[in-house]
């Protein structure tokens, strides 16, 4: 087996859905919301993307529908947890199941299909060739020739970083996650900010879903996110909810997945490579556990 540009190119493709979801998770984390509904929200995006592209014939309208549907879906978390004070974890777990049921239900009622839907007529996102970048030796083939959403995801990392660390909006968000009562007392509209973040996160998950269903492949299959949303949750932890950190964590999983496929070609059973990203994730968590180790249960008492 060789380490070649194609491997990294595959890694970048694989990481994109995770990256979108992880950015969403990072924003929510900064606002003090532990969002584990990324998996289901992304799945809704997958379905809406395929449905949008199928019925309009335009994959970009599919992307738009994916963003709208996922953002709408994430309103469940916003209303349930932010406004009404429900347990975000319970709501998120139920949302993930709701997404599985809902997309399977719609798959049957809308497409009359069971298990999965694909059709030669279904249009995915075209690959983009970057004129000059393409020419760069080694790097060119890695960076060029992806679906446009891959580049959008990089842009999203940069925009999120600027928003968080340079803008008033980000400063207020970072503060509000640390001490919501203080933020409110200083005139920040906590509920509104959190709504915005959860719904914007939903939109990002929609982009991730669209990339998965219209970029990486061109089909919808039940439960096709297959744990990517959970890996995104872990990426948020590993990357300390910082955009660039989250990107690096997602890259790790992208590489694991791409390597897995490669190894499969060399005769390793598919099941071993299926498991690879999760094992890599766990190991990465162990390695960084010192940082993640939860605080002494009493330390909080001492602090306050």
């Amino acid at each position, binding site marked *: 087996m060789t380490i070649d540009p194609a491997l990294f190119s595959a890694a970048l493709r694989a990481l994109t859905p995770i990256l979108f979801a992880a950015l969403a998770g990072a924003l929510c984390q900064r606002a*003090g919301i532990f969002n584990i509904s990324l998996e289901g929200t992304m799945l809704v995006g997958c379905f809406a993307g395929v449905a949008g592209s199928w019925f309009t014939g335009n994959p970009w309208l599919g992307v738009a529908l994916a963003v709208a549907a996922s953002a709408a879906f994430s309103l469940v978390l916003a209303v349930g*947890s932010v406004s009404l*004070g429900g347990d975000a974890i319970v*709501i998120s777990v*139920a949302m993930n199941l709701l997404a599985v049921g809902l997309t399977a239900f719609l798959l049957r009622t809308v497409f009359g299909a069971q298990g999965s839907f694909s059709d030669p007529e279904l249009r995915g996102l075209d690959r983009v060739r970057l004129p000059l970048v393409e020419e760069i030796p080694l790097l060119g083939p890695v960076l060029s020739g992806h679906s446009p959403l891959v580049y959008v995801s990089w842009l999203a990392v940069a925009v999120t970083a600027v928003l968080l660390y340079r803008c008033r909006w980000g400063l207020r968000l970072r503060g509000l996650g640390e001490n919501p009562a203080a*933020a*409110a007392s200083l005139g920040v509209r906590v509920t509104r900010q959190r709504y915005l973040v959860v719904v914007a996160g939903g939109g990002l998950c929609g982009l991730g879903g669209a990339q998965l269903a219209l970029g990486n492949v061109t089909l919808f299959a039940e439960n096709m996110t297959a744990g990517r949303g959970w890996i995104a949750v872990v990426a948020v932890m590993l990357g300390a909810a910082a955009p660039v950190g989250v990107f690096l964590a997602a890259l790790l999983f992208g590489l694991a997945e791409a390597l897995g496929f490669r190894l499969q070609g060399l005769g390793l059973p598919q*099941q071993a490579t299926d498991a690879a990203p999760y094992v890599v*994730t766990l190991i990465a*968590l162990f390695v960084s556990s010192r940082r993640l180790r939860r605080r002494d249960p009493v330390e909080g008492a001492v602090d306050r």
Partner: protein
Amino acid sequence: MTSRTAEATPPAGTARPSRLLRTRGGVVALAVLTGVVVGTLVLAGTGTNPLTAYAALATGAFGPDNLPDTLSYVLPVLGMATALAIPLRAGMVNLGGEGQLVLGAVGALVTGLFSPLPAPLTVVAALLVGTLAGASYAALAALCDSHLGVPLLVSSLLLSYPAISFASYLVRFPLADPGSSLPQSERLPAGVALPTLGAGQISVGLVAVLAVVAAYTVVDRRTPAGYEVRMTGLGARFASYAGIDRPRLTVRVLAASGGIAGLVGAILVLGFPFRFIDGALISPQYTWIGLMAALLAAAHPVGTAVAAFFFAALTSGAFEMERITQAPRELTAIVQALVIIVLATSTGLLRGKGGPR
């Protein structure tokens, strides 16, 4: 107004939750009612007469022809609900039930295929090995939480995927049924099976699961261990203050949880069709339906059992509903998830605004 300040001093302007929402029973009733209403609307929306659909659902769940099917659905759902309720009682979430279930099944399968013991003893051994497999795998997730700093929620879920892949590999390659193209294991030797009750397909496994439910009820209410679990769930800091060793409790609670999940897996393999079929324990969503039942009942032992029974009946009855009305049975999954969402949301109202943890 933020959640935090609202908690400290009840602000003058906030509406109090209505009388209905003051008790857990009221909240559950509201959640279930919402589920029914949405289900009715969706049915009507897809051009199905809701009444026909509900009649079919009821027949499908409790009709004389279908009751055995329902009971064979109740077994794993009730078992998984109880398994997942135990950590919930201590305020912990075990999302790795599927992996523990599957490993229990694999443990029982391997024991059943290769045990040199006589068949009845092999059955007992298979149940034990299945339980142990589930218990130790769940305990591993607990150790990740207490010693490696990976939150239980994440460690249990992430461990689940490799376990499922491992089982899938086993039944496709080393243990595959050579006479079939399906991804399934060889059939267990004759006699290596749980005896059945009556004429139907109900194995004594259901009795075993009911015994587990009874044991959980007694432990929860009447033992020091159950007391410690409840106190940990109600106040984690209070529990450590009172001398309850949280890491150790986590491992034990998870071992109990995974053990029950593993037992359920073993029981399923030792029943019809007496083999492990790839995906057969995953695609019916036993684990997730069980988890929702446990959430609905706030992990209360009897409440969890009742909720699990109804969720299982709903899921099982949906097959008949689909046959008669063409309405997709996935509808029941939607309704169940909605019930939990409404419940969690209105529980937030009940508590006063909770805010994120």
